[in-house]
């Protein structure tokens, strides 16, 4: 399983995503923003950070990078893509996912171990969780307040495309406590929490992130079997 991790100028958690792929049994492949090749990877992670300094709007510049043209094309053809934090913002800007992420309602950056409920297990990145499983994943962001027009929110809720929901405290003011969503096909998932920080026993507050990567393996294996 070769998993590409994109580095934009200003990406920060790329090394963490690379380590997480390695620790969970995959082969990480570094992808550079200025290249339009995905090097034949089986999946792509858009990591956290401040791509292009978050100038203009979070993710607004990154979506126009050469690598994103290819990510958008292949995601539409079914390539599994996970957007974490800034990666989620990039996916929304790229219109692979609906909605937008605006400033936290508390108006400060917020870093904590956040409880989540898994709402959908029918995606490439969540199929190894139990439905309604409660997990703890690190959050750390200043602009993670997910908003969309009421119709879109109804559509996401009605089609099981809300994948993760904040449990207990809503840390940023997201509508319906939404922490992560998927595209219609379930191959593209974006979320504000950072599963790559929850895979390493030496440093992680918990290991609930492992199942994101196990889900991917499972998804790719099933695809291969079907083929």
């Amino acid at each position: 399983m070769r998993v590409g991790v994109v580095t934009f100028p200003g990406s920060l958690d790329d090394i963490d995503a690379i380590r997480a792929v390695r620790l969970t049994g995959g082969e990480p492949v570094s992808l550079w923003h200025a290249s339009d090749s995905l090097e034949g990877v089986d999946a792509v992670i858009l990591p956290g950070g401040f791509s292009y300094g978050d100038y203009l709007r979070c993710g607004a510049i990154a979506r126009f990078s050469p690598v994103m043209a290819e990510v958008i094309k292949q995601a539409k053809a079914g390539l599994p893509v996970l957007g974490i934090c800034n990666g989620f913002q990039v996916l929304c800007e790229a219109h692979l996912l609906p909605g937008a992420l605006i400033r936290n309602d508390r108006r400060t950056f917020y870093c904590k171990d956040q409880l989540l409920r898994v709402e959908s297990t029918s995606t490439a990145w969540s199929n190894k969780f139990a439905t309604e499983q409660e997990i703890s994943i690190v959050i750390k962001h200043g602009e993670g307040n997910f908003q969309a027009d009421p119709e879109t929110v109804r559509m996401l809720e009605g089609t099981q495309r809300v994948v993760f929901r904040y449990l207990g405290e809503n840390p940023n003011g997201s509508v319906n406590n939404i922490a992560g969503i998927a595209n219609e096909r379930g191959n593209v998932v974006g979320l504000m929490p950072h599963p790559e920080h929850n895979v390493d026993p030496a440093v992680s507050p918990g290991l609930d992130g492992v199942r994101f990567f196990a889900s991917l393996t499972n998804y790719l294996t099933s695809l291969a079997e079907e083929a």
Partner: protein
Amino acid sequence: MTDTVANAKATPDVTQPWAELGLKADEYRSIREILRRRPTSCELAMYSVMWSEHCSYKSSKVHLARFAQLPKTTPRGPLLAGIGEQAGVVDIGNDWAVTFKVESHNHPSYVEPYQGAATGVGGIVRDILAMGARPIASMDSLRFGRLDAPDTARVLPGIVAGVGGYGNCLGLPNIGGEVVFDASYYGNPLVNALSVGVLKHGDLHLAFARGAGNKVILYGATTGGDGIGGASVLASETFDADGPAKRPSVQVGDPFTEKLLIECTLELFAAGVVNGIQDLGAAGISCATSELASAGDGGMHIDLDLVPLRDNTLTPEEILMSESQERMAAVVEPENLDRFFEICAKWDVLATVIGEVTEGDRLVIDWHGETVVDVDPHTVAHEGPVYQRPMARPDWLDALNADTTASLGRPGNGPELEEHFRRVVVSPNQCDKSWVTDQYDRYVRGNSVLSQPEDSGMLRIDEGTGLGIALATDCNARFTLLDPYVGAQLALAEAYRNVAATGAEPVAITDCLNFGSPEDPEVMWQFSQAIDGLIEGCKILGTPVTGGNVSFYNRTGETNIMPTPLVGMLGVIDNVADRVKSRFQNQGDAIVLLGETRNDLDGSAWAEVIHNHIGGNPPKPCLEAEQALAQVLLRASKERLLSSAHDLSDGGLAVALAESAMLSGFGARMKLPEDTFVALFSETPGRVLVSLPESKLSALSQLCGDLPHARLGTVTDDGALTITGQFAIAVSALRREWAATIPVALKTRPRSAR
């Protein structure tokens, strides 16, 4: 018109604004003697900023020289670089080295809290980077006026957002620090930023310019009009009376550019295309060119017209003094230029050749084809004035020392004791600081083993072996006010103990010496005493001083801050899997206090919170006892005896016990010695509260040998802190109040329970 060297020779009697630039009459006179003519306005700009207190250490130099008597060896081997370099470098084994340093950015943070604090983080990170190290974490020690003072609501959120805004965007985990409130910091908050970096031994780079014909390259951000307060005096007074408006004196940071600068610089080092590198901080191009040239073996020629500007109205004096952030200077051999520019282009970093290393020993700077600076760079960078400032023991000190806590009212019964306990635990200096620390990313880079509120931050360095480091910063300025010599040693002892409590061996320190005005003899006495205390303490503990920073003139009006010699201690742990956390872990564990408790209430948190009192004499540090305690903690960590270990400092056992419980959710049942009040609130140093399974008690006892240790209680799951015979307090209620102190004072939303 431009004030050229030729013009300066032709017009020796022009009146120059040396006083407005902060120079004294005799300093201006020595500049004229060095040059054997009057300085040009550009030269005056360079000398004035390089000879400032901030850059030249003119008041502190004679005292800092005493640090030289300390051995240059840590318990893990010789220092790879020490005082005098941009940051000290410590060998931690397995070919790894660590460089770390604390720097103050106090005054800018008061003027403009967000940018002042942000650029403080940016500056210290570039110091670490210039050594050839990858910056891997930050810590920040912040001191404010009283929490309930009106301006604190402006300064505190601004500084915290600045530290977070910059550090988070660089991808550096913030793993610890301090937040302290005291009235003396009201108009002068302290922002002491620590950065730590890691490198392989062979990657160490020291900054100098060598080899005539090698190019001097300025790379990173363009040069603008920020941070040049002083130079505008020159611009307006020398050239044009109506001149441009005064430039802002606080720099503005762009962490995105700095992130690119970090990656670009590390790639330049790895490619072997740089001979010397220096960051541009205080005094900008003036500092970088004069320091690089004077550390090398030749001269330097700079063409100031080549400096890329973001404001083309800047005068040459302003360009020389600009403190625009995110800039570095490199010395590069001509055959490496192509590769250098290629790497900069990859990272979208602007790079420009602005001059070259020359034969001879002059630093010559041209502007519009004429020479505006022609100096011996050593006289700019290193031959600034040195002052032996007068010192005097404050005459108020005897009265302060005589005003002990002996006469203060103590709690007379259980309910009163409980009330004092609660008030101390939830007071601003002892309360939950997560309102601050939750605004920092503590997880990025994936190596944060421990972060706040643990006793020290801990980072994994080597994923293969688990080799790691721990860092703690400490200073209890209340003790330093009562006795600066002893107070500095207590800061040292606390940082040492905090590192050891997590299972790491303390190996070296850096310091950040924040004091009032050096022109006040009492302040100079405090400063000198604190340095002597640190030197004697470091001798005993075997921890060298790797470098440091001095910040003077910290005062509001005529009131100096409490002397605040911050100590940053570095520790090494062979395997981070052995780390010990501060909170209780298991119901049923025995609670043991290591170390001896004496009657030490003077200067304590109890005296401050309950009686608003400061006076008497600080506790006597016993550094040999601290060493013995550290040895026990290190062995206990290696043998995996301990479930938790928490240093006792501000607020004594009361606060350590409350934190161990509140952070874990467990309770505790304690049976304390007869004078329960002293047992709870004394701040005798050399003590750590540990918890461990009963089955391991005898092994711990054996390890302790002569070190006093006493079983005080048991971890419970009943949600209460019970002091037998005195009181029982619900942990969850205490926790709620403890977590609300800062948010309530700032009128913001409290965080929910973790």
